[in-house]
């Protein structure tokens, strides 16, 4: 049972000091979670701390590979609106 940080991580350091198991470490090109140490905060907090402060949607996955913060959940930007804006920018 472990969470995972993927390549969309922006290396903001916010999660690292919050981890009760000291499972998060700085690495290149982005922070990583030591799966042997990660407890998903069970017994320490009601919610996994890294995913609770992470500002990037989709950067932290659960053991099943599902994003804890899915698209639109943090920014409030509807995913279709984001896709539309990005498509328009690329067209220019």
């Amino acid at each position, binding site marked *: 049972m472990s969470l995972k940080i993927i390549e*969309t991580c*922006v*290396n*903001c*350091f*916010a999660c690292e*000091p*919050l981890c009760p198991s000291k499972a998060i470490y700085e690495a290149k090109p982005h922070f990583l979670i030591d799966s042997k140490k990660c407890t998903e905060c069970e017994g320490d*907090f*009601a*919610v996994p*701390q890294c995913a*609770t*402060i992470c*500002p*990037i949607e989709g950067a932290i996955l659960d053991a099943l590979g599902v994003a804890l913060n899915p698209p639109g959940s*943090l*920014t*409030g*930007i509807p995913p279709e*609106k*984001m896709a539309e*804006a990005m498509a*328009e*920018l690329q067209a220019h």
Partner: protein
Amino acid sequence: MELPVLNEKPASQGGCSAGSCGSTDDQLNHLSDEIKAKVQNHPCYSEDAHHYFARMHVAVAPACNIQCHYCNRKYDCANESRPGVVSELLTPDQAVKKTMAVAANIPQMTVLGIAGPGDPLANPERTFETFRRLSKEAPDIKLCVSTNGLSLPESVEELAKHNIDHVTITINCVDPEIGAKIYPWIFWENRRIKGKKAAKILIEQQQKGLEMLVAKGILVKVNSVMIPGVNDKHLAEVSRIVKAKGAFLHNVMPLIAEAEHGTFYGVMGQRGPTGAELQALQDDCSGDMNMMRHCRQCRADAVGMLGEDRGDEFTMDKIELMDIDYEAAMEKRKVIHQAIEAEMNSKRAQKSEFAEQIAQEPKLTTRPVLMAVATSGQGVINVHFGHAKEFLIYEASPDGVRFISHRKADLYCGGDSTCGDGESVLQTTIRSLEGCEAVLCSKVGFEPWEMLENAGIMPNGEHAMEPIEEAVMSVYKEMAKNGKLDEIILHNRATA
């Protein structure tokens, strides 16, 4: 603490007090000696000082504890200049090295700020380690910090310990209903909190932090982002409240929102305010307090004078090669600072003399006029029109000259690579001067001269190297004499 009212619109009945009439930018005259001493060489706190002194930000604070709808944490671009953007994250040790390298090479740099790219107080170890070392190793540099305020109350003791006497809090609202439209979430007591509840906590923390800082005698500036349709009608109330609590300066900044930034406001099409809207709100708030109008909304790793960024000269790989003798640099800096202060003081004396002179002349009854000025500092007109990266906008009226705002210009005369489409860039620059009736530069080329005239903006290169206020007033008087101020203006309105 009762605040003096500064940078107000000149009273309509005329009759100006003290020596500030010629230019309201000389805000320092109204302040206590103690505050004066603290801000007189701080470019972000004194409009006057920003013509002479430089600042830098070190990007040591990447983490943030809230999300704002005008911010995108993924953004990192060398060509983009706005808060929250950096090219290179620094460790405290690198930040100390960089600060000392810049201080030695740009001796007019007086201020080191930590402003992000996240929230400095959400990175207490990195932020305070940097301050701790700098206050010891570079004691001639003023330290300041900006914050969203969420962690401010718990940080006040530590801030006071490091002799940080300038703190900027970004306060966009005092009403959770409005806050919920600006802040989608905060991280608070190990949970992510959303909506009105989140905004309420943030607002309470900001206000509490403000009160605690004022109680400690720390100078507080309040920044507010003006978001049309969201908090624009609300900011005058914010201004009143933060003033009553003892904030010393209020800085209302325009929202920056472009779809390509990927922010909520950018993608959702929220517009920023027009120059006229921003000025109207600043004037509205200035009845209550000292307004800052010269903010350039710097990046979290900006280096140099406000409006310029010399960050490229001080990347970590370049700094590692520099050999800095800080003791020697401090000696040199001291001499240079004294010379700059002497120059500032003589310019101030000159300004008040000029203001007195105006007060004694028969008063004009003409309408106010906006003029654009090209300057690279020292309070004089000293930049060629085509080389201006920005223009300062001044208002001339029978009451005197006051600084209004700055406007970015696109460099059209940037050398071979950009000359191809130079003309369209020139057009953009001229459009950015909309509302101005004259532009004062050290020189204006033939082509822009004609285009400026066609746009109803009078080009003027006759006042090169003259003090800004005197030159603006002289052009204004000439316009009055020539009957230009009696005409009905067709394509220009006197707003910035």
